[in-house]
């Protein structure tokens, strides 16, 4: 009996060792690319070509960051990423606000003012979450041209808002369905109308899902490449397109440190949001999979 307990304890210890060993090894694998990006961006080009890849920089220099931010050439314009970073902000802020606002009111209607056909409408909207955008970029390019919006930031705001509605509606619909109907009914009896109930009864309860929706939309739109590369050119491109252009320059000695600094600059906003509000990010991620 005694030895049995001891062997059970030993096998338990081996189990724990296996668990922590695997978790730590895999954590190292997931962190490695970020580490490589950061140390490469802080090295001089000579050090990189001298063969330092994964090691800590001998002398930290921010030269590559400076180049990526204001000197690197995107096409023929050597302005660095700064103007494109600004483009992305000008695109992402209105698109996030608009698509989240529209999603909120849609979710409210689809749950609290149910009418015949509401479910069918929701189904129609939902397919938009899984649309391969290749199937719509051709006509979208034509329509943006007709509206004189091709190659402009407002054009991208419009596109991202329209294709964001599906996801934001899904978020708010699945959230509001958990809020008891009695709440809205009581407000109705008190004489509150459609908008009054939305603003003073529903929205105050919806803070968590507003955060989820904003974070999701922010990440999606900031990271978008397909719309950016299809509908803009040159100076009006978002940052992902500019980053890809910097990296694909084939002239001269390849500046890997500038590439990595540029990638970090493009990654920092979404990484920051992830670090600050990771919990809400995960909720957005799983919302498409786990129904509310």
């Amino acid at each position, binding site marked *: 009996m005694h030895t049995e307990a001891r062997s059970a304890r030993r096998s338990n210890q081996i189990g724990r060792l296996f668990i922590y060993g695997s978790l730590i090894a895999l954590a190292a694998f997931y962190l490695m690319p970020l580490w490589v990006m950061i140390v490469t961006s802080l090295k001089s080009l000579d050090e990189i070509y001298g063969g330092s890849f994964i090691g800590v920089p001998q002398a930290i220099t921010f030269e590559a960051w400076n180049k990526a931010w204001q000197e690197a050439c995107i096409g023929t314009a050597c302005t660095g990423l700064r103007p494109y970073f600004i483009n992305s902000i000008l695109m992402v802020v209105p698109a996030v606000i608009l698509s989240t606002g529209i999603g909120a009111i849609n979710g409210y209607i689809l749950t609290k003012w149910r009418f015949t056909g509401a479910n069918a409408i929701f189904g129609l909207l939902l397919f938009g979450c899984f649309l391969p955008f290749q199937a719509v970029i*051709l006509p979208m390019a034509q329509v943006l041209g007709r509206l004189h919006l091709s190659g402009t930031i407002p054009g991208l705001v419009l596109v991202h808002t329209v294709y964001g509605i599906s996801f934001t509606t899904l978020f708010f619909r699945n959230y509001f369905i958990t809020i008891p109907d009695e709440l809205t009914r009581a407000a109705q009896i008190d004489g509150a*109308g459609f908008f009054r109930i939305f603003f003073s009864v529903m929205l105050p309860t919806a803070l968590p899902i507003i955060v989820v929706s904003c974070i999701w939309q922010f990440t999606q739109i900031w990271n978008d490449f397909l719309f950016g590369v299809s509908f803009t050119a040159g100076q009006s491109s978002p940052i992902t397109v500019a*980053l890809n252009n910097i990296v694909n320059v084939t002239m001269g000695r390849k500046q890997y440190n500038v590439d990595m600094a540029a990638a970090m600059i493009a990654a920092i906003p*979404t990484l920051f949001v992830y670090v600050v509000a990771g919990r809400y990010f995960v909720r957005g991620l799983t919302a498409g999979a786990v129904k509310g």
Partner: protein
Amino acid sequence: MSLKNKLDLWLPRLVLSPSLLAVLIAVYLFIVWTAWISLSSSQMVPKFDFVGLEQYVRLWSTPRWHTAVANLFIFTTLFLAITISLGLFLAILLDQKVRAEGFLRAVYLYPMALSFIVTGTAWKWILNPTLGLQKVVNELGWTGFVFDWITQPSFAIYCVVIAAVWQSTGFAMAIFLAGLRAIDTSIIKAAQIEGASLPRIYVSVIVPMLRPAFLSVIVLLSYISIKSFDLVLALTNAGPGSATEMPSTFMFAATFRRNQMGVGAASAIMMLMTVAAIIVPYLYSELREDRNAH
């Protein structure tokens, strides 16, 4: 019925209608538009004539498209198999009451917050055969180690798999972990009392209970792999040559670079039909279950 009540009855529909209209146009009408172009003789500019399935015949007789379809098949199979196994493995390990769980979870998941362009840029550098990972391993003493897949036409697609797995495992893990947390722990205890070992309990009791999570992960990862475009472009630019061409990169190049709008539209419709074949039944079953639950 008073005027106010009547207004309240119609207001919701009125407010919803612009969204509905926008989606009907930007999703459904545009799909019809693309489908029509795929049946026309359009090349540089859209033409609205009708040539039957000519563009589809051209598409399927293009060697590049065959490469793209084969690559999609290889990529999807490996990407799904590895991401799901690794994600499930991580979720099960994290579910063993480990220390620093929150931190570890954040580490596995952060790549999901990055743009595929960033991921592609980083991995292109890591996989660089002269200055990247290969060199590190060589310097550690294993001088014969060669890792130049990214320059080998027949291996480059596996580089795309590695980067895509790195980016998406956290997502699979998060969904599996949510599934595991929803399982009643008394089941595990009961099985343990019966004398079953922990790995056995997982294989024969817990994993089968994760069926809904598996379904979600499979569907969403397939969707990610069919539309994956940015990663391929940033990592290999569909090369070397056209070795890592995918349907998404093919569509883009045909439409915007080679003035083959009709062929591009036909390839887009092929992609759409593949996605729809996976997504529509999934959404239908989710919505129907939803209705039964309420």
